[in-house]
């Protein structure tokens, strides 16, 4: 165990350019000839990059890292990408990513149900096969263009929500308090007036109990099947109790009923459902 730690320490120093010539050559030769050592070196490199990005390196180590490790455009690109990945993960990856087979799973839709209950009718007019294919191709291209445009829009919204929710929260009159479904009982749904375009709606999601080190919010816009999620959120103390601050751009809130699902990320690494907040945006 001690030997393994010493090896890792030596590798770290090698990557920071802190070893003498002889020791460097010893590390390099082992790296190219010993597969297990190579994997260990790559793990150490990966963790060094993460340590740099999370601000864990000492001042001296950081200086060595910048001077030595970031000396090539390739390494700088690598660290930049690693930083982007951290931010992307911290904000929460898409709630419904592609399944291993490449299909996107849509909640509530089961393939086996498709076609059931739909009457099968023969067309009364026969359409030439080539015309049908052409029509299908045009429709397919339009659908693809629409889907790609939609995909881009979602990506833009996701980025905006990530950016907004990285900012620190400060309670005030402009914040809207949302109660979870359980707490509302027989009272009316949370209601907001349609916000002006270009503004940001600031919400406090009240917690019945603050049980998790961090949370994820999944936003489902009324009338849409896609969901946008933001992770890495933390509860804060307000005058009304513990709550999660959450911001949404006005463009995502047309007059409709919208849903915010709150998930907790447990100590064991499990993502657990906590509560749901339904709110109505009126004209």
């Amino acid at each position, binding site marked *: 165990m001690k030997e393994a730690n010493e090896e890792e320490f030596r590798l770290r120093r090698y990557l920071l350019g802190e070893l003498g010539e002889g020791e460097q050559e010893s590390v390099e030769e082992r790296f190219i000839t010993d597969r297990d050592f190579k994997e260990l070196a790559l793990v150490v490199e990966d963790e060094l990059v993460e340590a740099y990005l999370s601000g864990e390196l000492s001042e001296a180590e950081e200086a060595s890292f910048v001077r030595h490790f970031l000396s090539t*455009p390739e390494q700088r690109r690598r660290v930049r990408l690693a930083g982007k990945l951290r931010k992307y993960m*911290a904000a929460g990856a898409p709630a419904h990513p592609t399944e291993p087979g490449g299909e996107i799973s849509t909640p509530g839709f089961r393939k086996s149900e498709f076609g059931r209950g739909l009457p099968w009718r023969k067309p009364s007019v026969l359409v030439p096969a080539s015309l049908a294919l052409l029509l299908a191709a045009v429709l397919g291209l339009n659908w693809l263009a629409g889907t790609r445009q939609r995909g881009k829009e979602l990506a833009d919204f996701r980025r905006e929500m990530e950016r907004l929710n990285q900012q620190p929260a400060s309670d005030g009159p402009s914040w809207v308090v949302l109660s979870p479904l359980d707490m509302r009982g027989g009272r009316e749904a949370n209601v907001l007036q349609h916000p002006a375009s270009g503004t940001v709606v600031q919400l406090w999601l009240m917690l019945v109990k603050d049980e998790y080190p*961090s949370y994820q919010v999944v936003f489902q816009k009324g009338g849409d099947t896609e969901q946008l999620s933001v992770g890495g959120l933390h509860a804060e103390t307000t005058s009304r109790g513990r709550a999660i601050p959450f911001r949404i751009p006005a463009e995502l809130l047309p007059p409709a009923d919208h849903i915010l699902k709150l998930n907790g990320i447990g100590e064991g690494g499990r993502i657990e459902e906590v509560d749901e907040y339904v709110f109505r945006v009126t004209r």
Partner: protein
Amino acid sequence: MTQDQFDRLLAWLSEDPEEAGRRYEDIRHSLIKLFTWQGCADAEGLADEVFDRAAARLGGPGWSYVGDPAHYCYGVAKKLLYECRRRMKSHAPLDEVARLTVDASEVTEDDSELEHECLGLCVGKLDAESRELIMVYYALEKRDKIEARKALAERFGISINNLRVRLYRIRAGLEKCIGECTEKGSRREMN
């Protein structure tokens, strides 16, 4: 390197063609990493140079080497690495701010946009367990890295060392996927 020389090089790495191909890629990858870590420009070109030199000498007059080809390749690479290190040391120390600032020509807004899209695509391609592992790791890591690792290792029923290797492999896989995706994206935009 001629085709003949390349064939002789592969045969030297292993009698089995598949194994020879694997060893070639492995040694090449190692050389690229070493050249990159030592701040050499064009690490891929230098790795190919190593193979060119080895292939040129292989089986020629005076050839008497018996041993691990990887060890021989390192011997050839050592001279080139030495040159890189010497050049790095002889450069005037750069202003710290200049070092920290990425050259504007290295990143454009289009690159950033494309990278972000590719990031989403590539994360989507991860199997469910890998995706969960890495998402939860980043969520927990903010609080306490050591506790995060322990919790994850327990959750997935693996040792902490295995966890570290898995996380590295996931990140390395994502880096490769994003690289390929952005290259495709850039070529599409140019066309």
